[in-house]
């Protein structure tokens, strides 16, 4: 499949996962990601692989846990309220060091919220989300093509570091159709899954667990996990920069918000405003150094999100007081227009009195 095909994000990510060697998909319907299980229900049996509609997101994530424990490539998908239900299982996956991919096609919250696009789950995704001291890798594509390219990467990262990986999309990315190409890029060299439960056939027993009652063992387990997280932070940060060098204003945005920002930045440039943008593709690990470096020459940072301001906290930590950081966002399903972001950029050129 090297030709360009017009597909919606949800179906495209499903096909990309299948091409990446997905063995099993477990999921429960929730809008706006229903095309994922629907597509999987048709395609997975065609490939002789497993599709199962679970009775709840609690069950989905634990089915994922079971298949992952036997060494299979496995994923689930859901949207915000369903991802909240999965947090118990994600914490157990992290504790038991099991690889799995979880796609969150975010919608408005809190509570049942609505079914409109949102980026309100940034904190939940980048801070672990469930109980305990852990992180999950978070990939945040901003186009259907990038969503497609994220899937094999997500599985490889999960297998390489033995960790759950989140793909953070939103209602627009899931629903909108764009042309995509399914590239079969060479895969990473991955470690053997010699820890997997396959039956102790002529070998010692394997155990997958997250409980150790002996004093000091869980403490050491935490330090071991942190060492893996340090490795991930060292090797796996992805971000895109555009016309940052001469910029006086740098807009930071991810996912679908970055698409809107790109339009606004291009228009602002046409008006002669020196503005660029930084787009984190991995939300954790966060491109802290890249943003910090960009803050060396005095610039104003504007963070644009489909939330009341979540990633802006990481941007502030990255900028570390070197420059002002301003936020603009809309929440609960509200989507900023290019014109609204452009207006915000224009206001910032009248600094400093307009900087809040």
């Amino acid at each position, binding site marked *: 499949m090297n030709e360009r095909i017009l597909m919606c994000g949800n179906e495209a990510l499903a096909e990309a996962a299948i091409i990446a060697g997905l063995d099993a998909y*477990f999921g429960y319907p929730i809008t706006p990601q229903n095309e994922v299980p629907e597509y999987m229900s048709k395609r997975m049996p065609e490939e002789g692989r497993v599709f199962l509609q679970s009775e709840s997101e609690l069950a989905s994530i634990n089915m994922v846990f079971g*298949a992952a424990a036997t060494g299979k490539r496995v994923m689930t998908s859901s949207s915000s309220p369903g991802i909240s239900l999965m947090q118990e299982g994600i914490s157990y996956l992290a504790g038991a060091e099991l690889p799995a991919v979880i796609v969150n096609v975010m919608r408005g919250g809190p509570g049942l919220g609505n079914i409109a696009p949102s980026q309100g789950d940034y904190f939940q995704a980048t801070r672990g989300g469930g109980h305990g001291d852990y992180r999950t890798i978070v990939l945040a594509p901003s186009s259907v093509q990038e969503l497609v390219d994220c899937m094999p990467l997500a599985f490889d990262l999960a297998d390489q570091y033995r960790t759950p990986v989140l793909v953070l999309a939103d209602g627009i990315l899931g629903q909108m159709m764009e042309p995509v190409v399914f590239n079969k890029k060479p895969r990473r060299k991955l470690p053997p899954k010699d820890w997997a439960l*396959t*039956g102790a056939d002529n070998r010692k027993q394997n*155990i997958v667990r997250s*409980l150790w009652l002996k004093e000091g063992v869980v403490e050491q387990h935490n330090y071991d996990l942190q060492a893996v997280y340090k490795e991930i932070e060292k090797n796996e940060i992805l971000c895109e920069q555009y016309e940052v060098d001469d910029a006086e204003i740098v807009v930071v945005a991810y996912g679908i918000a970055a698409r809107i920002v790109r339009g606004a930045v291009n228009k602002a440039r046409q008006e002669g405003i020196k503005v660029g943008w930084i787009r984190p593709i991995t939300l954790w690990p966060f491109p802290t150094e890249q943003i910090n470096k960009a803050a060396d020459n005095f610039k104003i940072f504007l963070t644009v999100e489909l939330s009341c301001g979540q990633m802006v906290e990481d941007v502030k930590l990255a900028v570390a007081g070197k420059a002002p950081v301003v936020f603009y966002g809309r929440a609960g399903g509200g989507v900023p227009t290019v014109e609204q972001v452009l207006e915000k950029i224009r206001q910032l050129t009248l600094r400093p009195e307009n900087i809040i």
Partner: protein
Amino acid sequence: MMQKVFSKPQALKDCPTHYCPGCGHGIAHRLIAETIDELGIRGRTIGIAPVGCAVLAYDYFDVDMVEVAHGRAPAVATGMKRTNPDKIIFSYQGDGDLAAIGTGEIIHAAHRGEQITVIFINNAVFGMTGGQMAPTTILNQVTTTTPLGRDASKQGYPLQVSELLTLLPGTIYIERCSLHKPALIRNAKKAIKHAFELQLNNAPGLSLVELLSPCPTYWRMTPVKAIEWMENEMTKVFPLGRLKG
């Protein structure tokens, strides 16, 4: 020459357990391990430990094992069996795990007819957390959260999960046994072996063996009294026998 006539099952490790004196878990572990040995399936068996007193079951069973979140074993088993149909998957769950927090998971795994074997330990109490009420706690039974005894008008009636599960077309074999007498223990072994054999033969559905099991510590009884209580009280609420299949 001396002939060896009896030994520890290979599927069980040679180590002491943490279980209390008079507890039934050790017996249940042994019956499962004997079954695994006799069927020659150690190399293709994956066990699932619950949250509860048996959370450390993988320290005693010498087969591949996973420890999972409270009550989720049937969902984990589903994920394993669907992706590994040639493996023998069993979950080992207590009454808090299976009949309280995991009610949804066991009902739907049974409902889908997952080809797994469930060993359900019913001791009418939450053991690991210190003797609180379980869904299977019988009426008037005193626990740390029913200090005046379980009162149907306040805490409901003991939940007969096995009877409930017989209604689902996805279950093929359900039997309730008890571990309080040698003859009953022999019968429990037969039931466990039958449940594993069904899975081995790809029988289309879920099999479950409920084992009534003594918990003298949290029944606040001597082991002897506990066995009498099972004979006189517990088996009246949870009658023994093959319920389905």
